[in-house]
C-alpha cells in the first residue's frame, strides 16, 4: 500500500521540485527528472512481491475521505490488469524522459515539469478506484499533453494540440454525465446516498435495467473509444503523433491510448454487462475495420511517424476486439497486447526519433541503405519491427494470437468472420512495416546526407535495450506478466458468462498460488 502511494506521488513531487531548479541549470533539470522517474519505476517494482497473483480482486487498497458529501474518496488500489499498466507507465516514462535529453532544447524546466505531471496523472488513472478521482486524473492528463504538443511540437503543433484537446474533452464530458448519473442511480437504490466508490458501484451497476445501462455504457464507451482510438474516431491521432516531440509520441502510444482500452474493461464490461452484450458486435466490427483500415492507410504513408501512428489504429483494433470477445483468451490477450503495443510501438517511435534527430526529416524517401552506417541501430529497429509485425517469439504475437483466438471462439460475438477479417491485419502489418524498413534501411546508401550518420549513442542504447529485453521476455515466457492478470480476467469473464448463460465455460478454480508464479 505504501509503495503504491510512493509510486504515484513521486512524479508529482518531482514536478514540484522542477519549480525550484533554475531554468538555466539544464543538467540539474534533466537528472532530477530522470532520477525521480526511475525511482518511481523502482518503487513500482517493489509492488510485485506484494502483489498476490491468486487474488482476483483489488489489492493494496487505500481508502481516504475526500469529498464526503458525494462519497468521493481518495481510493486507490490495483488488480492484475491495472498492475501491469502501472508497471508499463513507470517503465515507459523514464525512457521517454531520457529520449528528451537530446531532442528538447527550449524551456526545459517547463518540459520536465509537464512530463512528470503526466506520469503522475497516468499512474493515477490506472490506480483510481473512485469514479471522481478517475475523472480528475483522466482530465489532468490533457493539460501536460496539450502543452507538450503545443509548445514542443512540430510545425502544425497548435492545430494538433487543439484537435487532441477538443476531441478528448468532447468524449469525456459524456463520461462525466455518466459518472454523475451512476452515482445518482446508486443513491436512488441506497437511501439517497450518492457514491463515487467504484467498489460499491461494480457490485451495484450490473443490476441497472438494460435500457439505462445502454446509455451509461455508450457515454463511457464514447469517451474511451476516442482515446483508443477506435475507427472512425481516430483522426486526431496521426496529427497529434506527427506534431508531438518523440517523447510525447512514446507516451501517447505507450501509455495514453491504453487508458481507453483500460476504461473499456474496467467500466464498460465490468459495470454494464447487459449493454456490453448488446453492443459487443457493432464495436467489434469497428475494431476489425480499424485493424484493416489502419494497416492499409499506414501502407500509403510517406512520413515515418504518420506510418507508425496509423499502425497504432490497427494494433489497438486487436485490443478492442479481444476485449469484446469477452473470453478469457481474448481479454488476457487484450491486456498483454496493451503492454506489447506500448513497448513495440513506443520503440518504433524511438527509432523514428533516432533518425529524426540526425536528419531532421521523417520523409521515407530521404533515407535508404542506413544499415550500412548504423548497423547496431539496424538490429534494434529490426526487432522493434518484427515485434510489431507479430512474429512468434516476440511479444506482439502473444497478444494478437490470443485476441483473435478469443474473438474466433467467442459465444458473445458468435461470428468467426470478425476474427478472420481481423487476422488479415497480420498480412498487412508485414506489408507496411517491412516496406518501411526496406525503404529506410536496405538498398544502397545513395543520399549523400546520410553517409556520415552516427550509429546509436549510449543514451539511445539505454532507451532501446530495456524495451528489447521485455519484447523478448514477453514473447518467450509471457506467464510472468499474464499470470498477474489471469485471476482478475477469469473473475470478470466468469461474471459475464454467468449473467448471460448462467454458467461458465471454464472451471473457475483458485489456482495454486505457487503454480502461478
Amino acid at each position, binding site marked *: 500500500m505504501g509503495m503504491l502511494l510512493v509510486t504515484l506521488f513521486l512524479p508529482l513531487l518531482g514536478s514540484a521540485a522542477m519549480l525550484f531548479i533554475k531554468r538555466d541549470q539544464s543538467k540539474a533539470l534533466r537528472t532530477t527528472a530522470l532520477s525521480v522517474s526511475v525511482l518511481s519505476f523502482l518503487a513500482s517494482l517493489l509492488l510485485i512481491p506484494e502483489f498476490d497473483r491468486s487474488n482476483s480482486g483489488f489489492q493494496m487498497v487505500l481508502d481516504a475521505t475526500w469529498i464526503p458529501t458525494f462519497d468521493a474518496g481518495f481510493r486507490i488500489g490495483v488488480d492484475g490488469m491495472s498492475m501491469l499498466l502501472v508497471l508499463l507507465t513507470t517503465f515507459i516514462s523514464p525512457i521517454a524522459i531520457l529520449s528528451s535529453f537530446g531532442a528538447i532544447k527550449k524551456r526545459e524546466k517547463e518540459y520536465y515539469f509537464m512530463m512528470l505531471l503526466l506520469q503522475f496523472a497516468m499512474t493515477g488513472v490506472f490506480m483510481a478506484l473512485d469514479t471522481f478521482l478517475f475523472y480528475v486524473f483522466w482530465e489532468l492528463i490533457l493539460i501536460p499533453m496539450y502543452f507538450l504538443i503545443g509548445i514542443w511540437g512540430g510545425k502544425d503543433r497548435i492545430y494538433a494540440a487543439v*484537435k487532441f484537446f*477538443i*476531441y478528448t474533452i468532447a468524449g469525456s464530458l459524456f463520461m462525466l454525465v455518466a459518472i454523475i448519473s451512476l452515482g445518482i442511480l446508486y443513491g436512488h437504490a441506497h437511501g439517497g446516498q450518492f457514491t463515487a466508490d467504484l467498489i460499491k458501484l461494480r457490485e451495484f451497476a450490473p443490476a441497472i435495467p438494460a435500457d439505462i445501462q445502454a446509455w451509461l455504457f455508450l457515454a463511457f464507451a464514447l469517451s474511451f473509444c476516442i482515446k483508443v482510438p477506435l475507427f*472512425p474516431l*481516430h*483522426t486526431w491521432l496521426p496529427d497529434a503523433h506527427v506534431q508531438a516531440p518523440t517523447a510525447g509520441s512514446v507516451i501517447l502510444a505507450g501509455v495514453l491510448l491504453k487508458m481507453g482500452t483500460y476504461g473499456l474493461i474496467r467500466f464498460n464490461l465490468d459495470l454494464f454487462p447487459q449493454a456490453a452484450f448488446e453492443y459487443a458486435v457493432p464495436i467489434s466490427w469497428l475494431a476489425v475495420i480499424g485493424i484493416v*483500415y489502419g494497416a*492499409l*492507410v499506414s*501502407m*500509403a*504513408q510517406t512520413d515515418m511517424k504518420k506510418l507508425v501512428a496509423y499502425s497504432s489504429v490497427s494494433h489497438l483494433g486487436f485490443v478492442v476486439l479481444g476485449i469484446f470477445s469477452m*473470453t*478469457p*483468451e481474448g481479454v*488476457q*490477450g487484450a491486456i498483454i497486447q496493451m503492454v506489447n503495443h506500448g513497448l513495440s510501438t513506443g520503440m518504433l517511435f524511438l527509432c523514428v526519433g533516432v533518425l529524426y534527430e540526425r536528419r531532421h526529416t521523417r520523409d521515407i524517401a530521404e533515407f535508404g*541503405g542506413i*544499415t*550500412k552506417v548504423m548497423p547496431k541501430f539496424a538490429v534494434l529497429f529490426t526487432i522493434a519491427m*518484427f515485434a510489431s509485425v507479430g*512474429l*512468434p*517469439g516476440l511479444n506482439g*504475437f*502473444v497478444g494478437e*494470437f*490470443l485476441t*483473435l*483466438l*478469443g474473438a*474466433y*471462439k467467442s459465444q458473445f460475438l458468435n461470428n*468467426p468472420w470478425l*476474427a*478472420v477479417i481481423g*487476422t*488479415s491485419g*497480420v*498480412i498487412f502489418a*508485414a*506489408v507496411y512495416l*517491412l516496406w518501411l524498413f*526496406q525503404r529506410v*534501411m*536496405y*538498398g*544502397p*546508401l545513395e543520399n549523400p546526407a546520410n553517409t556520415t550518420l552516427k550509429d546509436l549513442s549510449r543514451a539511445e542504447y539505454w532507451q532501446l535495450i530495456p524495451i528489447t529485453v521485455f519484447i523478448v521476455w514477453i514473447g*518467450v*515466457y*509471457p*506467464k510472468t506478466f*499474464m499470470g498477474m492478470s*489471469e485471476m482478475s*480476467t*477469469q473473475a470478470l*469473464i466468469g461474471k459475464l458468462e454467468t449473467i448471460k448463460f448462467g454458467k461458465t*465455460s*471454464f472451471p473457475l478454480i483458485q489456482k495454486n498460488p505457487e503454480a502461478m508464479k
Partner: protein
Amino acid sequence: MLDLAYLIPLFPLIGFLITGFFGKKLKSEALIGGIASAAVGLSFAVAATLFFTLTGLPADARSHTTYIFSWLAAGNFNVDVAYQVDQLSIVYALIVTGIGTLIHIYSMGYMHGDKSYPRFFAYLNLFIFMMLNLVLANNFLLTFLGWEGVGLCSYLLIGFWYDRKFEGVNIRFTGDAANKAFIANRIGDFGVLIAMFLIYKTFGTLEYNAVNTAAAVAPPDAGIMTAIALLLFLGSTGKSAQLPLAVWLPDAMAGPTPVSALIHAATMVTAGIFLVARNATLFALAPDAMTVVAVVGVTTALVAATIGIVQNDIKKVLAYSTVSQLGFMFAALGVGAFTAAVFHVMTHAFFKALLFLGSGSVIHGMHEEQDIQKMGGLKKYMPVTHRTFLIGTIAISGIPPLAGFFSKDEILWMTFEHGGHGPMWIILAIAAFCTAFYMFRLYYLTFGGKERFDHHRLHPHESPVTMTLPLNVLAFLSVVGGFLGVPYALGFFASDHPNLLENWLGPIFSQANGILGRGEHHSIHAIEYVLMAASIAIATAGILLASKLYKEESEKPAELARKFKGAYNLLLHKYRIDEIYQALVVSFIYQFSERFLWKVFDVKIVDGLINGAAKTTQSAGESLRRIQSGVTQNYALLMIAGIVVILTWLAVG
C-alpha cells in the same frame, strides 16, 4: 534418453547467441564458423542418438514428448513448449541437422572474407533452431513459432547483402526480394492462423496427437475438416512455394547460395509437406481438400518445370526445379502417398542441396557470374564440382539406381494407382521429362562445350576443401539414399520389407491409411514394371534431347526459340504471373489505400466532418457574438420583444 530431445534445438540456439552477440569480438573466421558448425553438428549427434534409441523400441512405442514449460495460457487454453520425438520428426531432424552441418562447413569457405561473416552464421544457427522447433513441436503453435521463425531467417538471409542490386518484377534490390518472400509467406500464415482457431474451437486443444486422434475417433462435420485441411494447405503453399504463392522462391535466390541450398531447397521449403504429413489424419478425413492438394501439386510441378527449361541464371533454374519437385511431393500427399512424399523430401534434400552447393562453387569460381550462357567448359577447371554436379543431375533426372529415381518413381506409381489411373501420371511424367531436360541443359551449358567467358577477366578455379568436402558427402548420399525406399516390386533381391522408410513411418500414417482404406498388403503388378520402365525411358529421352541441343555449341536452341517465339517468351517471363499479381493485387491495394482510404476517406470525410463541426460551432459563435453589441437600447428592445412573445404564447396557449 528421449528426454534429451530439447538438446537438439538447444545447441543451435547457443550457437546463435554466441555468434550473434560476440561474433564481432571473436574475430577469427575459423572460430566463428567452427562454433556455428559444431553447434549444428552436436544437434545432429543427439538426433542420431535418439534415432537409434527409437529403433531399439517396439514400433508402437516410438513416440515420446518432453515438456519444457507452459508457453501460452489463458482460460482453458494452454500451449506448451514441448518436443515430440517420433518416426516423422526424427527423420526431419536428421535431415535438417545433417544437411545443416554440411552447409555450415561449406559456408565457412563460401563466405570467407565477407564483412558480415559472424552475422551470417548467427542467422544460419537461428534458422536451424527455428526449423527444429518447427519439426519437433508437439503442437501447432510451437510449429508456428518455428514456421514464422524460419520465415524470419529466410527474410534476413535473402536481404543479407542489403545493398546489392537484384532484378525482378518490381524488385530492384535484395531487400525487395526479401520482402516479397516474407509477405507471400504471411498470406499462407494467415491460413495457418485461422486453421488453428478452427482446430481449437473444434477440438479444444492444439496438440498434434490429441487433435488427430480426436478427429479419427469422432470426425466432426466434413465441411469443418475440409476447411481445416485447406487452411493448413494454404500455409503450405506459402512456405513450400506452390501455386498461387510460388512467386517468391525464384526471387529468394537473391540470398547467398548456401542459404539457397539450406533454406530454399533442402529444408525450410519442405515445411509445408511436413505440416500435411504431420496431420495426415486430418487430411485423410477431408477428401476434397486432398484433391485440391493433388491438383495444386501436379499443376505446380508442370508449370515450374516448363519455366525451368528456358532460364539462364544457374540459381533460377534450380529454384524453379525446386518448386517443381515440391509439386511432386504435394501430388504424392494429395493421393495419400504420405511416405512417398517424405521419401522425396529426403532424397531431394540430398541432391538439391548438392546441386545448389555445386552452383555456389561455380559462382565462386567464376567470380560471381551466374549466367550459364557466359559459362561453358568448366569441366576441366573444376573437376570435383563437375563430378558431383553431374551425380546430382543424374539423381534428379531419375536414372536408377541413384536416389531420385526411387522416390520420384514411387510418386509416379502412387499417383497412377490412386490418382485416377492416368491424367495425373501423364502430367507428372511430362514434368519429369522437362526435369531431365532442363537439368542436363544446365549441366552442358555450364560444364560442357566451349568456354564462353572472357579469359582475360575470369580465371575459373576449383573451390577450397571446406566446399568440396560437403559436395562429396552429398554426392555419396545422392547415390545411395534411394535404397532406403526400395519398392516392393524390386524387393525380390532384398528382404520381405525392402522399403525401410515405409516400415519406419508406417505407424505415423496408419490412422490416415486406415481412413483411406489403404492396406498393408502389397501385391506386385505387372503394370508397375511397365510404368517404371516408362519413367526411365522418359528421363533418358529428356537427357538425350538436352545433349542433342546443348552438348555441342549449335544454333539449334536459338532457332527453336525463334520458331516458337510466343511460347518461348511466355516461359521466359514465367507466364507473367508476377506482372499479373503486381497489376491486379499490389498496385490495386496500394492505390486504393492511398488515393481513397487516406486522402479521401480519412482526410476529407472523417476529418472533414470533425473540422466541419468545429467550423459550424465557430461561425455560430461569430454570428451570435454580434448580438452582444453593448448597445443598451438594443438589449431593451430585445427584452420587450421577448416579453411580447412570451405573453402572446401564454395568451394563445
